[in-house]
Structure formats: structure tokens, C-alpha cells
């Protein structure tokens, strides 16, 4: 039953139609209708491969539907709906258009059955998402957006190069398992892990996401990194390097989150950390770990959107985004609902039992235990601690409660704060509901996973172990509570490499290289002018040449003999004759010759060509 269209097209069509709707209410209805239509479309999509179009001898497949792609498809459409509710009050149509294009292309990636389709949607995803950053309309956002798009273009180029080599080597455009090893697979993997924000290629994420608009960043958290996890699951299951990259990445994000002062940047570092679990799960390559990665991507999209919505609501009502500007202002009295909903997200990401992080994160960790990988197991466990420490304890404490460090004065006037608009609260409520629902009834999610699930999250061992881990993390947090306040600093990350030496490169390009360009340009312009003036009358070319050399030789001779001054008039005369000859235009009646000029030039060319041919032949 192939009724409607590929889900990607529903969103892209929505993006095209949206700006045409002038009435605001109508537009809001339309914004919510599109994800609903797409959801119904998903419900009626049978498993299989369809929407195949032949293009230049290759099959473009827009619908490869199996359990894996359906699982990502569902959560993408759900978060699209939640995000649209959250963004309902935004009047700028452009933001919604960009969001629709972005969601549509992410769904295009999810259901792509060949790597060309994948690549096209991959690039649309990068280009459309950058507008969610640029709509913030300040300099920081503009700059961060440029860096974001440059990194993604680099990743896209690596992917395209890999795809071309892969296709010419194997002749297959099938988007599926790729044997790791060799240049083609390495380039494709590089393209993928740049989007998955794997260190050292992760800095674009923590750089750009906090600069995006409050509503745009909710969409950003969901699609780019998770579609990268999806393509990794498809192509590179069981690649050993991903295990280590993932485990390191999980701890790396947590370590940077300790130092962070900007609330959304802190959460962005936790995206990196959480995606680390998924990447490690891909690398472990067992059915359980791949299930774990898929489930964790599903849960992560929900709770991370919730967390960004909570932090975004605080930024929306207070206009402040730094812990140092927020702590000690007792905001919990003014926005208790936002705080409660945020905490549901905080508990979910920290894998507190009965919240959805618990049922997915433990699956990846259990998979590492089953394979007897002690170091990976401990690294992932350590990252869990850091996650609870920051998203569950430090950030809510700093935003809503908090103490001002001793010796610092709080400004006298209070922050104007209240609960955010109703649509924002409803969106957060929906995300919270889904986080708890999947946490309490994991079977809903487990039934969607690509492989049969033989994992039970709610055993006494798991629950008690996780409770101990979290409670004692809380105890340690208590000990260091004064050390963990925000510091008015920024942390240098790997984006340093293109932000600092980048300035040098800019200087090099705009000074020496620009100078070289101007010199070359003026040289060629002069050449062209000379050739153009000579071509007015090519017949006179020999004559002008002779006179030119005559003038030069006389000039030298007079100079050598010292009679230069006396003969100045004569030289002037010679010069003016050359100038006159240059000015003379070709006139057929003056130069009557046995053959026309065109024919003469053609014969000369033939002669030269013949000579070269003759010489080469010998």
C-alpha cells in the first residue's frame, strides 16, 4: 500500500507551501498538520523497497523501509511535532521553512536505499540546518553558523569522494554494509563521524548549537547527530575503532561539561557524550549493542529535546544564558513548571530507573559487559556519572537555585521571569510524557528495535546498581557544590585549530595572495590590451615591429654616443610614427592583396600546423 509519498517529500512540500500561507492561524495549523500527516504516512508504510527511480543508469531508492529505518523515522517525526509545538509562537516563517527542510532531509537520509540519494539529502540537511543558527541574527550566531557550514561542507566532500571511489571500485550504489578498510570506506566513515560529532571533529556542535535560536536548537539536537548514528549502524557495524572513539567521546563531552558556563553549551557537550554511547554500540557490533544504540538514539532525541526546551525557556524569559548570570536568583519560585519538566529530562538522560535513559543506556553498557570489554565498560560508566552530575544536578541547581560565590555581589534588581508561553510548556509536557512512558513500558520501544530484544532493564541488579551510582554521585556533588558553580570563562576546544590559525590564513589570503592576484591580473590585462590594439591591423604587425626595434636601437646608439639630446626630435618623430601606425585601422582598399586577410591567416595557421605535424612525425 504505497499511498501518499516518501515522508521526506511531505516535509519538503510543507517547506515550499508554508511561506505561501499569509494567515498566521492557518500557518500554525499547517505547521502541526505536516508532522501528523507524515506520522500517518509512516504507519501505513509497509516494509520493503519502493519509490525506485532510474537516473543515469543508477537506481535512486527513496523508500527502503525496514525495522531500523522505521525506528528512526518514528522518532524523527515525533520530535518534529514536539518541536513545532514548541516553536508555534515564532512569527518568522523562514525559521519554520528551514526546520521543515531540515526534518525532511533527515527523513530522506533515513529512508534512502542508495548512497546517491543519501548524499543529496545529507547535503540538504547541512544547508537547511544552518539557517536555524543564522536566524538568531547576532554576530556570534553568524560566525558560528559559518564555521558550522564549513565543517559540514568538508564532511560532505569527504563523503562524496568516498562514495565516488566506492562506486567505481565495486560498481554498487547500494547503501548498506561497507567493509571497513581502504580509502573509500575511510573517507565515507570520516564524512559520517564528522556529523556524529566524534572528537576531534566535534567542535562544530558545541560551537554552533548554543548560538542557534531558542526554538531552532531543539531541532538541531535531534537530527544531525542521530542520522549520523543511523548511517553508521547501516554501514559500519562492528568496526573496532568506533568502540574506542565512542567510549572516549562519552567521557570527553562530560569533562568539558564540567568547565562550561553557557547552559546550552553544557547541554551540547552532553549530546557529544551521549552520542558516544551510540557510536560505541555501533562499534561493538552485536545485536544487543546495535539495539542499544538504536534505542538510545530514540530516547536521547526525546530527552535532549526536552532539556534544550527547558534551557531555551529560561533563555527566552530571562534573556540570560550563562550560569554566572543566573545562579543565586531563586528562579525556582518563578518558573516551577519549567523546572519540574526539565528535571524529567535530567533524570532521563542520567538513566534514573523509570525514565527512558535507563532502558537504553544500560543496554549499551550491558552489551560491553557481555563482550567482556572492561575498559569500555568503565569509561561508559564513568560518563554516566558525569551526565547525572551536570544535567541532573549542577545545571538545574545553577539555573533555578544556586548560590552566588562568596565575595561576589548580586545586582540588586531581580530578574524578570515567569513561566514561558503555553505552547512551550505543552511541548515540554509531551516530551516528558514520552520520556516516562518509554521508561515505564520499555516494550513499546523494544518492539520497534531492529533485532529481537533479550534484555531486561528492570532487574534488581541493574536498578540497585544504578541507584547506588547516582546517589553517591549526588553525595560527591554535595561535597564540591561550591567548586561547581559557573566560571566566566570559555573553554578552548578543537575548534581552536580553525579559529586561531584561521586568522593567520585569512591574513595570508588577504595580503600576500591578494597582492599576487592583483599583479597577475594587471599583467594579463596589459597583455590583452596590447594584443587587442595590435589586432586592429595585423597586416601592419611586421612594420610596427621593425619600427619599434628601429626606435629602440637608435635610442641606444644615441645614448651611447652622447648625442641623445640633439636627436630628441628625430626620436620623437619615430615614436609618433609608431603611434600613428598603431592607430591605423585595417582597410581593404589600402591593403589590396591577391587574397583576403582571413584566408591569409588561415593559410599561415595551416603552414605552422603542417610544420609542427611534419616535425613531430619525424
Amino acid at each position, binding site marked *: 500500500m504505497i499511498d501518499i509519498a516518501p515522508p521526506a517529500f511531505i516535509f519538503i512540500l510543507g517547506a515550499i507551501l508554508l511561506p505561501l500561507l499569509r494567515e498566521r492561524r492557518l500557518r500554525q495549523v499547517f505547521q502541526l498538520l505536516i508532522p501528523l500527516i507524515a506520522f500517518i504516512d509512516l504507519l501505513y508504510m509497509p516494509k520493503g523497497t519502493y519509490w525506485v527511480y532510474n537516473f543515469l543508469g543508477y537506481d535512486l531508492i527513496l523508500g527502503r523501509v525496514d525495522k531500523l529505518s522505521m525506528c528512526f523515522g518514528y522518532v524523527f517525526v515525533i520530535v518534529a511535532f514536539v518541536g513545532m509545538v514548541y516553536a508555534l509562537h515564532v512569527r518568522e516563517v523562514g525559521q519554520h521553512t528551514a526546520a521543515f527542510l531540515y526534518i525532511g532531509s533527515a527523513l530522506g537520509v533515513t529512508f534512502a536505499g542508495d548512497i546517491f540519494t543519501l548524499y543529496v539529502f545529507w547535503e540538504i540537511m547541512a544547508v537547511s540546518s544552518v539557517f536555524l543558527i543564522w536566524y538568531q541574527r547576532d554576530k556570534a550566531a553568524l560566525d558560528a553558523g559559518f564555521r558550522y557550514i564549513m565543517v559540514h561542507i568538508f564532511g560532505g566532500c569527504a563523503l562524496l569522494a568516498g562514495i565516488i571511489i566506492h562506486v567505481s571500485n565495486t560498481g554498487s550504489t547500494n547503501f548498506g554494509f561497507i567493509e571497513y578498510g581502504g580509502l573509500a570506506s575511510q573517507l565515507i566513515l570520516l564524512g559520517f563521524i564528522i556529523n556524529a560529532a566524534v572528537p576531534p571533529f566535534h567542535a562544530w556542535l558545541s560551537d554552533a548549537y548554543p548560538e542557534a535560536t531558542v526554538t531552532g536548537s531543539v531541532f538541531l539536537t535531534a537530527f544531525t547527530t542521530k542520522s549520523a548514528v543511523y548511517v553508521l549502524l547501516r554501514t559500519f557495524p562492528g568496526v573496532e575503532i568506533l568502540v574506542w572513539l565512542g567510549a572516549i567521546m562519552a567521557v570527553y563531552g562530560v569533562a568539558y561539561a564540567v568547565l562550561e558556563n553557557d547552559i546550552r553549551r553544557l547541554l551540547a557537550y552532553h549530546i557529544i557524550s551521549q552520542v558516544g554511547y551510540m557510536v560505541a554500540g555501533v562499534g561493538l557490533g552485536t545485536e544487543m549493542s546495535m539495539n542499544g544504540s538504536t534505542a538510545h538514539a530514540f530516547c536521547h532525541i526525546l530527552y535532549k529535546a526536552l532539556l534544550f526546551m527547558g534551557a531555551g525557556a529560561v533563555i527566552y524569559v530571562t534573556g540570560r544564558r550563562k550560569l554566572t548570570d543566573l545562579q543565586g536568583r531563586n528562579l525556582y519560585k518563578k518558573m516551577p513548571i519549567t523546572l519540574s519538566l526539565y528535571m524529567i529530562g535530567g533524570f532521563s538522560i542520567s538513566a534514573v530507573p523509570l525514565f527512558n535513559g535507563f532502558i537504553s543506556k544500560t543496554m549499551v553498557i550491558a552489551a560491553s559487559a557481555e563482550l567482556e570489554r572492561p575498559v569500555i565498560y568503565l569509561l561508559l560508566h564513568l560518563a554516566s556519572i558525569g551526565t547525572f552530575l551536570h544535567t541532573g544536578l549542577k545545571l538545574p541547581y545553577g539555573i533555578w537555585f544556586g548560590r552566588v560565590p562568596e565575595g561576589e555581589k548580586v545586582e540588586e534588581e531581580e530578574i524578570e521571569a515567569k513561566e514561558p508561553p503555553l505552547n512551550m510548556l505543552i511541548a515540554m509536557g509531551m516530551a516528558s510524557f514520552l520520556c516516562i512512558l518509554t521508561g515505564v513500558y520499555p516494550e513499546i520501544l523494544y518492539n520497534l528495535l531492529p533485532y529481537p530484544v533479550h534484555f531486561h532493564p528492570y532487574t534488581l541488579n541493574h536498578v540497585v546498581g544504578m541507584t547506588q551510582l547516582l546517589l553517591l554521585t549526588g553525595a560527591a556533588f554535595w561535597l564540591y557544590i561550591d567548586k561547581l558553580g559557573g566560571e566566566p*570563562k570559555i573553554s578552548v576546544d578543537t575548534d581552536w585549530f580553525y579559529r586561531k590559525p584561521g586568522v593567520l590564513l585569512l591574513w595570508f589570503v588577504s595580503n600576500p595572495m591578494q597582492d599576487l592576484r592583483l599583479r597577475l591580473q594587471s599583467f594579463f590585462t596589459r597583455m590583452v590590451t596590447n594584443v587587442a590594439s595590435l589586432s586592429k591591423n595585423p597586416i601592419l604587425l611586421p612594420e610596427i615591429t621593425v619600427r619599434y626595434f628601429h626606435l629602440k636601437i637608435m635610442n641606444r646608439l644615441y645614448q651611447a654616443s652622447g648625442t641623445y639630446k640633439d636627436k630628441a626630435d628625430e626620436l620623437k618623430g619615430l615614436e609618433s610614427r609608431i603611434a600613428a601606425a598603431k592607430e591605423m585601422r585595417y582597410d581593404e582598399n589600402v591593403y589590396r592583396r591577391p587574397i583576403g586577410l582571413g584566408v591569409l591567416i588561415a593559410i599561415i595557421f595551416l603552414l605552422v600546423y603542417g610544420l609542427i605535424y611534419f616535425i613531430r612525425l619525424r
Partner: protein
Amino acid sequence: MARKLTYIFFISIGVSILVGLFIPHEHVHFWWEKIPAFDAIFGFLGCIVIVLGAKALGHHGIQKDEDYYD
């Protein structure tokens, strides 16, 4: 109120550790799973390691003033 919460907090730590001592381990994959209350110890020490480690790194080079890139 705050005092009450503190009591509840410490009591729940005690209870979770006590319960942990008496439940049998189903699949033991690593030697440390036999250590009593390992998760609690790991959570406490791990948290301290993360905080102190990251702060040390931050204060020795990673953290810069906010106008560093301007």
C-alpha cells in the same frame, strides 16, 4: 525541610547499599562486580575524579577569558 531532605538522602544511600549486599549477582563479567557496593564506590570516586580532573585541565590551559576569540 532541607534537613529532612538530607536525612532522606542519607537513608536512601544506606538502604541501596544494604539491598545491594543481599541480592545475588546473575551474570558476573568482571572481577570488580564481586566487590560489595562497587557501584556506590565507583560513583563517589568517579564523580570526584571527573570534577577534579576536568577542573585541573581547565585551569591549566583549556579555560580562557571570554573575549579570547574576539
